[in-house]
Each structure stands twice: as C-alpha cells, then as structure tokens.
C-alpha cells in the first residue's frame, strides 16, 4: 500500500476561504485508491519537525493579522523547509503561503514581512485596502503535460511580481497582479497560487498530479493512479467554465 505524508502548517491560523478543504480532498482521493494519507499539523511554537521526511508541505492563506503572527515562526523553519524542497518534497502553497515563500510581503500600511526567499518573486499590497483582486478565476496550465483549465476563486490585495515560471495563464480573472496574464508559481514540486475555492474542489486533475508526484518521487516504477468517479466534479467545472468563458 502506498503512503503519503503531508505536513499541514499553521492550519489553526492560515485557514481562510475553506483552504483546509484541500487537505480533506487529498485525503478523500487517496482513501478511494487505498493510498494511506497521513496529515500532520504544525502550529507556531510546536517542536521543530524534520521537514524532509514529508512528501508534501501545505500552507494556506490567512488574514493580514494572522500572517504577521506566524511570520517570525516561519523564518525559524526556513532551513528545514529549504532542505525538504531541495530534497523533492512537494510545496503546495495558497495565497499567504505563496507570498511568504518569496522575498518579502509589503502590506497595505507599508510594513514589510520577510519571506523565506525560496523563490525570487515579491509581493506588494496597494495602500488602499479596497483595491483587491476578488472574483472567480479560470486559468490554463500545462503542468500535467496537457492543457487543463483550473477553476477557483481569488481574493487578494497583494500584487506578486518577478514570477519566472507561472502556474498558468489567466483566461478569466486577475492572477498574480490586477488584470495580469499569469497566475501563481510552478516548479515540478511546487504549486503556489492565489486560487481558493478551495483550489482542489473543482480540479481533480491537479489533485491527482500532486498525489502521483508524491507516491512516485521515491519509486523507480511508475505507479499509475486508479481512475475515480468524478462526475459531480466534472459537472461542477462545466457549469462554471460555461458561465465564465462562454459569454
């Protein structure tokens, strides 16, 4: 039986817009395939975990105040997370988690929160809190080797710049910056994105990309994932894609 071990960081604080649902979905899709999915939680101040032992590290989004609370703790985890990432651990990062892996996040009042600097991008929030990128979003990505539309919901003030390799191109919505053409950041073991919804709810192909990566990263023979009945998810996608793109 295959096994996946996930570290869900700051679940008690960075859990805005149903982001914990992503963990519920991964667990569900693993269970259906008889893959053991262990999700451990890490909160600020807990004993420092050994990060490279995890197949995935997941960080969700939070309000400004909560992001400030965890930032000092996150810096303490920098070396561990970097080591895990270099070792091939998958980094799945939503919104605040995405921003904090870059160089820095400057909030609406001009306060700078230092990021982990794993990647070159940086994020600046406009001084007016009213200027947020809010709404449904559809992007197109080719991370699975063929074009896939990803449907979600974005809600962020921060404008992320300096992204070298985006997660996808924007078909509807804003993306990394207001009215931009690119969304998120991608490497073979990194998906960093502004998509909530939660992101995986309507995008089973992305869930399966990550599950497949995790169970295959240490194995020599490619383990193929069993197909699941995704009828409800497909119908759900269809309704939103038709509504947003076929106007």
């Amino acid at each position, binding site marked *: 039986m295959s096994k996946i071990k996930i570290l869900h960081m700051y679940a*008690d*604080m960075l*859990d*805005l*817009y*149903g*982001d*914990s*649902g992503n963990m*519920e*979905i991964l667990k*569900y899709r693993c269970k259906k395939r008889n893959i053991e999915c262990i999700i451990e939680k890490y909160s600020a101040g807990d004993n420092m975990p050994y990060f490279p032992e995890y197949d995935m590290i997941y960080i969700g989004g939070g*309000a*400004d*105040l*909560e992001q400030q*609370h965890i930032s000092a703790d996150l810096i303490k985890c920098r070396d561990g997370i970097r080591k895990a990432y270099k070792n091939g651990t998958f980094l799945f990062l939503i919104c605040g988690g995405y921003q904090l892996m870059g160089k820095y996040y400057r909030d609406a009042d001009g306060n700078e929160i230092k990021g982990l600097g794993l990647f070159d991008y940086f994020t600046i929030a406009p001084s007016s*809190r*009213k200027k*947020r990128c*809010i*709404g*449904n979003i559809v992007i197109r990505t080719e991370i699975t080797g063929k074009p896939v539309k990803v449907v979600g*919901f974005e*809600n962020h003030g921060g404008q992320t710049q300096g992204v070298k390799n985006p997660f996808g191109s924007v078909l509807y919505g804003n993306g990394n910056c207001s009215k931009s053409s690119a969304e998120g950041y991608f490497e073979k073991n990194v998906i960093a994105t502004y998509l*909530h*919804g*939660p992101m995986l*709810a*309507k995008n089973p192909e992305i869930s399966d990309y990550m599950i497949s990566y995790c169970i295959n990263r240490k194995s020599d023979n490619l383990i193929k994932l069993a197909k699941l*009945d995704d*009828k*409800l*998810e497909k*119908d*759900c996608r269809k*309704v939103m894609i038709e509504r947003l793109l076929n106007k």
Partner: protein
Amino acid sequence: MKRLLILTGKIIVKILNLLGRNAGNLPGIILWHLSGQKCCSIFKVECPIIAVTGTNGKTSVTNCIAQLFEKSGKKIIINREGNNLDTGICSLLLRHCDMSGRVKADYLILETDESHIPVVYSQMKLETLVVLNFFRDQLDRNGEMETLINKVNSFCKTFDGNLILNGDDPNTARLGRANPKNKNVRYFHAEPYKFATDKIFEASEGHFCPFCSEPLEYEYYQYSHIGKFICRNCGFGNYEPYVTASKIDLEKPVFTADGHKYSPKLNSIYNVYNMTAVASVSKLYKIKQGITNGVISTYTVNNGRMENFMLGDRKATLNLAKNPVGANMTLRVMNEMNGEKELLFVLNDNIADGLDVSWIWDINFSIFERVTRVVTSGTRAYDIAVRIKCSGYDPAKITVCPDLDDAVAELARTEGRKFVIANYTAVQPTRQALKRYSENGGKNNE
C-alpha cells in the same frame, strides 16, 4: 439645502409608491449622491437611537428590542425590512420625517450593517450600540474580518454612549477597551450548555489576544469561537457580566437570565445569546419584567429561520445559513434529533451572498448522523454536492437538481423527516418553492 433634499427625497418616495415600487433603498441612494455622501445628516433626530450590529442575529434582536418598547407604549421607528446600510436608513427616515427633516418618535431602533456603523453614527447621535458577534461572512464583500472589526472599533474609540457587548466573543468583547473613558460598557455572557465543548469544533476566527497576541485560553466553547475565554497574559476576558444566561436546557427549551426564567420558542444556543442581548437592553432601559418575559417567550420567526412546512404529510424545517456557523448549527439540530432524515441544501452565489462559496468547506459534514439522502439546488448546486461527497458521504445518495421546484419535488418524493438549508438569496425562493409544493399538494411540475 437640507429642506430641499428632504423635499426631493419625499417626492422620490411618492413617485416610487405611485409606481408600486419598493422605496426601501433607492431614495437613499439618490440622496447619498445629492448630499455629498452624507445622506443621514439631513435629519433632525431628537429621540434616542439604539443600534444593533454583528454578523448573525441582527434582525431577530432588533425586532425583539422594538417589541420591548412598543409594548411599553412607546412610539418607535424600526427598519424591519433589514435595509441596514446608510442609504436604507435614509430611505426609512424619509418616510417618517416632516418637511423640515424632523423625525418624531420615542426611540429609533436600527439594525445596522457592521461596516456602516461609523458612517451612519458620525451623522446621527447614537445612544446605545449592541454588538452581537463577528463571524466570517461574505468576506469578499466586506474585506477581511479584521478590517470590519477595526471599523467598528474606530467608532467605539470616541463613543461614550452605552455599549452592550457579547462578552463570550473575543472579536466583540475587545471593543470594550476601545475607549477607556467610556464607563457605559456592559457585557452579556452565557454559562455552558449541554453541547458545549472544551475543544473548538468548527473553523473560526479569533485565536489570539488582540491586545498582546498571546493565545486565548478557553474554559469552554459553546459554538464556533463563542465561549468563556481569557488571556492569561493581559487579563482580556476578565470582566463582570451585566447579564448572565444560565440553566440553559434546549430540550425544553428554558434558560435563566439575570435571575428571570424564560421559555423561548426557538431551541438553539445562538437564540439564547440573542435573547440575553435583548434582556440586557431591557435591564438598561428598565423595561417591566412582564413585558420582557412576553417578548422573549413568544418571539419566533417566519422568515426561513427554523420555519416549518408540510410537504404532504412530511415535515420540513427550513433554516437560513449565510455562513458556516449557521449551517453547522442546523446540522447539530438535525443530529440531536432521533430517526432518519433527509437534507436539501440550496446554495446561491449572487452578489448579496458573497460570490465566494468556499465557506461551505468550513461546514463540518462529517458529523452527519442518520442522513439517508441529500438533494442540492441553487446556482452552485454542484459545489455543495462535491463538498458533501468529499466529507465521505456516499455520492450515490446525492441528487443534484439546480431548479428549485424540481429539488423540492425530489425531496418530497420519499417519506421521512426533512431539513432544508438555504443561504442568503436562496432562502426566499426556497420558501416560495416549499409553499408552492405544500399548497399544490406536490403538483408543481404537472
């Protein structure tokens, strides 16, 4: 200038009435533009104003407070239709003022949107502000919750009137420190009920002391983040309650507040909190105990808040849930009831709902007990179906019917007890569909 604005406003109300249109908001919107965005400043209000705000329960508490005064023989003005923004309040006052803008009443009782507290009450003097709670609700419309609390907090910094706060909600109780000079801050509180827990049960806000950032410690949680909390570092949460609800038994249902026993019609813990807020206002304004008893014991709602319908011989209970807290409460009520039941969940994503439906992932469906079937409907019928499926519920037992009449017919097809959850803009259409079905005896689609 003010007289001219009043005259203009009144003419608009007249025209709308002649056209048979609802004048609930539009006159206020027009005056908002004409008055340089200060549409509530044109009135002369000489009576005390009592405002009620918070994420959940505003309408219920506002109506109950109004009844306290009405039954005491006072003339009151209230925004019953829930037009609770500055423009809605302006439209209301236009209908009740004379040509000089003078508003004649003994009390103005106004449900007020959280984000509009500073807007409205910088223009009209407020005597009493009741704050019920702050939950995640329609976040994409209001910005993050912290921004919302800060708005009300900034108003409280210079407010020296009566402040009645839910002392068991750290997001609300913190407003009590906004103006240290204000001696008129009062807190209401409730002792634990049967289903209170020592661990948090549902996703929530407010984990840290807003003053010193230390984690808050809880003696118990009633629901979501509502419960008896304290900051061990700075003492936040340590206050003398003005009114305490105790001996809460929701099976009867009964509870005691400030030594008086009440038998409310509604059996939820959040109704107990709402009614404790009402009892606090009653105490503050020295309302006769007989009147308070009458209001709290008879208050019930027919607007989709635990409202019952008969679908043939099958009983269906509809409850509005505009956020996870409301939905989780309904699931708890379902679970606390014996026997098998079926659920219809109607989910819309119109502007007034907040376009983002991700809050459904904060609903704890894994607690489902003896739920034999689920029907989903609304503009996001598939989203809620996927969400329930991923909680581990058998997808073969889920039927998606985006059309509401189809959904109600599907729900009524089988025997047994029914529950219906609908979000904000879904609740009225759902009521209509349930009514149509019960009146036509199931012949909706024939």
